């Protein structure tokens, strides 16, 4: 025969347990065990993310030279950066580099995906070939482009001047104001567009063929099918890929550091390279971290939007 307590509903039994009852009601009967399970990851996040991040914010509010204790200066580093012309140019360059790269990667990635969904011979082979830039180490790619762009010894000028004869003389791709930024953007695009392409390709393959067939029956042209079927179906993927690439491109250090080090004359200086130079060249760690954190609010907005879209995608 069951005891009266055993006959009570579980929630009522929990209510009788005093102080723990509220928590148990809110978090479930096994909430103590839950804490135990979550504790390791909380400790890891605190130790590996929260503490370094908090310490970085603290250091950005100090004057910190290598090997000597930091001196609190409040927001001085941020105020100084705001009025620093060199920093301002780096901010502008960072946006030009990021949006220029992402826009071209978006267009090329879409073209790549469309071509690879079409009925072409050796499709798997071409997919593999187009993925090579994405899988090649960035350092290797950048060093190769350093050689490709070289005025005297580079293959690009050789092709344009001596083989194709489209230019009377070579171009200093990394040394002229009109071409330096475009050249580093081109390398970032070359390296990054396969990610766009392969993501869009995966999205396109998930679109039911019936939708295209129905559109075709209604007399839609290829362009209209792309506009009214493909693009809406890919909308979420496009947003996620663009936001992810924006974050990665904005923080890209390797390509510019290897190709130009931010030169000539700061023409390709971007925030990650400036951060590195102030940290390891000038060895002013507080100011370097301030440079790195200065654009954090803007990046945080991008990350929040991205996280929302990803959550929405998962909910579906």
């Amino acid at each position: 025969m069951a005891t009266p307590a055993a006959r009570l509903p579980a929630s009522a039994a929990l209510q009788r347990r005093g102080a723990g009852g509220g928590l148990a009601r809110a978090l479930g009967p096994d909430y103590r065990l839950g804490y135990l399970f979550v504790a390791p990851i909380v400790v890891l996040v605190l130790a590996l993310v929260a503490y370094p991040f908090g310490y970085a914010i603290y250091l950005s509010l100090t004057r910190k030279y290598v090997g000597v204790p930091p001196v609190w200066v409040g927001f001085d580093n941020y105020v100084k950066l705001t009025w620093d012309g060199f920093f301002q140019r780096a901010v502008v360059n960072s946006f030009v580099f990021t949006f220029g790269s992402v826009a071209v990667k978006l267009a090329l990635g879409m073209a790549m995906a469309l071509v690879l969904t079409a009925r072409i011979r050796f499709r798997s082979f071409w997919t593999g070939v187009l993925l090579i830039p994405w899988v090649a180490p960035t350092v290797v790619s950048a060093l190769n482009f350093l050689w490709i762009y070289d005025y005297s010894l580079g293959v690009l000028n050789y092709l344009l001047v001596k083989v194709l004869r489209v230019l009377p003389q070579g171009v200093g791709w990394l040394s002229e104001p009109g071409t330096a930024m475009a050249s580093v953007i081109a390398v970032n695009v070359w390296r990054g567009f396969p990610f766009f392409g392969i993501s869009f390709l995966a999205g396109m393959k998930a679109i039911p063929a019936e939708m295209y067939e129905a559109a075709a029956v209604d007399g839609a042209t290829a362009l209209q099918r792309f506009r009214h079927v493909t693009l809406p179906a890919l909308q979420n993927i496009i947003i996620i890929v663009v936001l992810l690439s924006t974050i990665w491109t904005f923080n890209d250090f390797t390509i510019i550091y290897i190709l130009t080090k931010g030169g000539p004359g700061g023409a390709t200086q971007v925030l990650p390279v400036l951060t590195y130079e102030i940290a390891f060249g000038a060895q002013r760690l507080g100011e370097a971290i301030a440079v790195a954190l200065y654009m954090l609010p803007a990046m945080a907005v991008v990350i929040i939007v991205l996280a929302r879209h990803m959550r929405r995608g998962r909910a579906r």
Partner: protein
Amino acid sequence: MDQRLRHLAEQLDVGLIARREFLRKAAVVTGGAAAGLATLRTMASAQPKTKLRVWLFKSFVTNANDVLGRQIEAWAKERGVDVELDWATFGDREPKFVAAIEAGNPPDLAEMHIMGPTRYKAVLRDMSALAGDLARAKGGLLPFAETAMKIDGKFLAVARYSMTTVFFVRKDVMEAKGLKPPKVYDPDVVEFARKTQDPSKDLFGFGQTLNRSDDGDGFMENIFWDYGGGSWDKDGKPALGTTFRAQNLKALQFAVDTIQKHKIQPPGVMGWTDVSNNEAYMAGKLVTTNNGASLYYAMVTKKHELAAKTQLVLTPGGPGGSFVGSSCYNWAIFGKSKHADLCEDLIRWVEDEKRFSEYLHVSVGQAGPVYKGRVDHPYWKSDPNFEAIVQNIVRSVNYGHPGPLTSAAVEVRAQHILTDMAGRVVVGGLSPEAALKEAHARVEEIYKMRRT
């Protein structure tokens, strides 16, 4: 698995012993083994082998790196010390130091660039006694080396060798045109380049980047001094756009003119890195260039056809004289090291003249003298091209010239202020006056920050 445990398991399997007895005996065996191992470990750690962490500079002169590595290993064997060698090249070196110092885990001993003692003075050990001993034994330090090693009256490092730049000239082209090596940049280098170059054949008279690089920054410093200017006055105060404004403007204009007006440089020169002029010279596309001895080393060791057709001459000068900044590589011991005596012993070992001579002979001119006694080493007479290397080093000046070597002067160099200034004119389209004013503001800012 321990053989005894395996034996016990077999006995259990065939029913020779009960499970309880297996557990009891297994516990005894396992516990005994653990206790034995712990005792052995304690005995082993009672007499540990001293471990020394040594960071070395990985130069492009790889044969010299090998010799130094071997010498240190021989010392470690002789002294019964465990040495952990770690190599870092130009780009990796400073980030490694910064990370190690900030993490509180620097090496015991490091081979440093000339900037090292000034940059890391807060965490370096006073080495005055050893540095003084070695300097006395080797005839004294060259003035620029002594200034760089001695910070606030204390030697924070022991000088080892100097790496300098010299002017590389294609001897065959020069002789074919009946010319002599240029002595000053303007007009000698300009005329020399014009007479020898042939852009239609992709041969340019002069190859000197003004881009952010050691080569570019070094040239800009030298040319400012050559015109009687510089970034600092004799008291170490900013002078770029004030005291030396007129001289600096002329120097900047000349540097820019080599590209824009005289057209003696290859069109892509503003995008060059430190290795670009080496590659262009070895590809036969330059008649002259400024570079360190590593370029000569590369040509000699590869038996490159241009090695025999190259003449190294003194770096050209200007209306204010002829100046060169050279590096002084050195040994520094970190204050946190518990083995300072061993580090000093190692330094004495590798700086022994016989061993240094072995290093010198494979360096093909890169290990220039920093001690007066080494200037007259017979090695420097073994190749006529070495004369320019030695003479450039002997007359070297430091960052901050004509003032003292300061943290601010080091930072101005490290931040590429002068090459950025040139780049703003050549690429950014600024007037030399505006670029100079902009650069001066940056120098002033660094000066203020470093003073506080």
